[in-house]
């Protein structure tokens, strides 16, 4: 048995046990709402434990040096725990939209955290695959430096063209149009929706100036075009990786607010309902 296969089997076993636990508990919780013994306390405290449990994924990411299992396991448990929480929430409250002001805010947060979590999970499954189709790899934090390097190189090509051809046609075109493009990542929405807007824009700029250039200038233009298209792929990485990072700016604060509300909810329940 290969190491990869053993890991996969272990991964499936953990997921299977956890999924079975989810199904068993959900069935039990659905069965018990009208039985004596106030099952909402059971479902409530299980939700509380699960919320703390899924929140541990953040700690696990901070403590990457501690051998507490593969991050993939943790993520799988985090996702499954999240789904169980939303299921238990309905069993716990017996309704989609509660009545009280606090309860409504709580419900709103549950839904927002769940929605943002689902969004994050989907883009984590989808965007990395798209990024591999770009043909390049780049670390997100290095994108500013890489863009600065590309910009420098582009400016050097424009200057070299002027020196070599004795005309500033390409240089002026660079200053008037292309410099905007090289200044920072462009066509954010185009990359989000894979519309290839950046590539079309570059080709349009090249076609616009190409007819006014000499053969020598066209060689420089070709270099500039290649550099711009490379930058377009960098932009694509920037957009994709930004989406992968910035959704957490919504998910994590909402989850933190939810935890705060949950603590208050438990206090109130223990004071008033027990």
């Amino acid at each position, binding site marked *: 048995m290969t190491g990869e296969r053993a890991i996969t089997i272990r991964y499936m076993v953990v997921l299977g046990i956890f999924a079975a636990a989810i199904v068993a508990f959900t069935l039990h919780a659905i069965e*018990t*709402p009208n039985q004596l013994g106030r099952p909402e306390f059971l479902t409530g405290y299980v939700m509380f434990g699960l919320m703390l449990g899924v929140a541990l994924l953040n700690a696990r990411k901070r403590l990457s040096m501690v051998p507490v299992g593969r991050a993939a396991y943790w993520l799988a448990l985090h996702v499954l725990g999240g789904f169980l929480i939303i299921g238990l929430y309905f069993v716990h409250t017996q309704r989609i939209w509660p009545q009280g002001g606090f309860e409504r805010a709580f419900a709103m947060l549950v839904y927002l955290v769940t929605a943002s979590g689902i969004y994050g999970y989907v883009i984590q499954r989808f965007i990395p695959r798209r990024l591999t189709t770009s043909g390049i790899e780049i670390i997100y934090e290095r994108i500013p430096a890489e863009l600065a390097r590309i910009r420098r190189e582009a400016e050097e090509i424009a200057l070299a063209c002027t020196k070599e051809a004795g005309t500033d046609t390409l240089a002026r075109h660079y200053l008037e149009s292309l410099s905007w493009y090289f200044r*920072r990542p462009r066509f954010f929405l185009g990359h989000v929706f894979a519309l290839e807007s950046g590539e079309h824009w570059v080709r349009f700029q090249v076609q616009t100036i190409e007819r006014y250039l000499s053969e020598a200038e066209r060689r420089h233009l070709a270099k500039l075009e290649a550099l711009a298209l490379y930058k377009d792929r960098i932009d694509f990485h920037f957009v994709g990786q930004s989406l992968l990072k910035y959704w957490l700016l919504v998910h994590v604060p909402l989850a933190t607010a939810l*935890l*705060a509300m949950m603590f208050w909810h438990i206090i109130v329940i*223990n004071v*008033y309902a027990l």
Partner: protein
Amino acid sequence: MDPEKFRHDVSRYERPTERYRCGRGAEWRDPCAFGPNAKGQCGGTSDCRPAKVGDRYECRRPAFAGGPCAEGPKPDGACAHQRPPCRPRRTIRSLRGLIALSAFTLVIAIIATFLTVSQSSSRAVLSAGPLTGGHANFTAKSGCVACHEPHGADTGGWALAAFREDDLTARCITCHTFGGDPRLGHNAASDRSPRGREVQCTDCHTEHKGETFDIVKVGDEACNACHKQRVDSFGENHAAFKPSFPHDRRTSIMFDHVSHMAKHFADERVKTLAPANCASCHEMQGAETFVRPKSFDESCVGCHADVIATRELVLLRLPEFSESLLDKERVMEVCGPTLEQWQMMMESMSGDSDMATMRGMMTEETEYESVSSEEASAISAYLLGMPPDDPDDLTMQGFVWGLILEGEAPIAELIDARAGRKVSDRLLAGLNPELVRRVACAWAANIEYQPPNDPEFGGWYGDGLELKYRPPRANSHVDSVAYEWALFAAASAKEGDEALIDFAADMRNVVLGRTEGVGACTKCHAVSNDGEGGLTVEWRYAEAQSRPFTGFNHPRHLTLVDPEGVNLMNPDAGCRTCHKLNEAAQYQASFDGHDPHHFESNFSAISKETCAQCHNAGQVKQDCKTCHNYHLEPGFDLRMMSDAK
């Protein structure tokens, strides 16, 4: 992945977990090689930080930034390539932590603000939702503390309450009342469910779910939580009904449906008086589980109006005496001469007889032959404690003498003595003392009492050897004297005197007899054990108590039976859909004894299958609460009204 591009001389060292990143990079310019420090200050004002080696400074520009520069450090050790500082920015990770912390703090701050601003705002973060309409109204004045005691405590007490159990049920029962212990299952301990776990109101009822929330609605699982025999649905696995269901106990009124429907209502003489349908005699208005029969005056009087006045009560009957022990002279002195004596006196007055001679003639001792060959009445036997067929002459005649002297007083005295309290005024209501004296005088003279006229209007009257009561004809079938005598007779079942027990039983057989009893009360009204060793006459329609947690909605079912209108006498529909006559039942015999549970209804038992025709899967609802209630005699305490004001 190409590992070459991460070589130290071509790749810079990124630190995305740190709090700050280079401001130049954030502005899409070339970031510096070092980045900001932990405090967020720019670390890239120079290309490197020269190191002093011996007495010289050497350039330390990293290889990926081009390696040592040609100019080298300045003599004072400063880098030759100086730049203005940038404004470092937070990394995404740092930003995320900051926003998350802010969100947590914001929630706490909002809760704290709501708690302190006003009562209504504090309720917004404490209450799980609006109360149901009724509870909201009755707790409007006292607020949360009406149900939640900790709400009224100070901060310390409030916090400590989180670790103490709050008895919410105790608060509920300040307004809600039940027929038994509210913490017991069904509010009542029974042999089958001895006092087990305590039940709390909140086990089944949840509040704060909105003004229109159905707080009473409880699912079958709540029932199955305690009941050993699990019932998933009525049609599937509900137990079969008892063989006698729902006739566990005989009715308080004996009405033989079989004989009336089969025989009497078909009789040509009363056919026009016969009821049109079940609703003619049963009150459908407001009926739920029990469909009460209409009153005697509404449903029975057409045929049975006369029967009451035909059943008399024999209070006293002159028994046969072997000899007369009464002083005839004294009797004559008190009562005066009898007609016979008067005629004798008139005949004597034609001669020369003086008064003494006449008196001697009238009181002359002759051979005694009792005018009565009857037994004493059962009532007098019980009152005097003597066998009716062999009374003690001295006692009995002394009693008659007492009647002569005091009217009904000796009877009243005996009645009160037997009852143990003053009841004679009601039992002897309307009895004229003079009537008693005259009857007694006649009996003392060993002659039958001749009433001056026919007692056609009823009431107390003397007739020969008897002093009797006949219920008068009246608009109502309620006769208070007959009623009181029935009560007196029923109460005699508790007679404690051994010597009187048999006499009491005989009296009951007479007074409460179904064929002879006074006013024919017990012809219809059952006489039953009262559960305390005595008897009770069931004057009023009584709802069965044997199944306090089972109900049946008659009106709804009648509508279902015949949507066009209730045609109750239709043998193919109507009431007979469920209530089928049992012609073989010994219904009337069920009323011979006093045990109400020894009973055979003249309706066949209703089986589960009858109900399951409709209450089954995919048809009409069949959850537990369709037929069963949980609480025993639920009600309200008046205190709730004051709290609502």
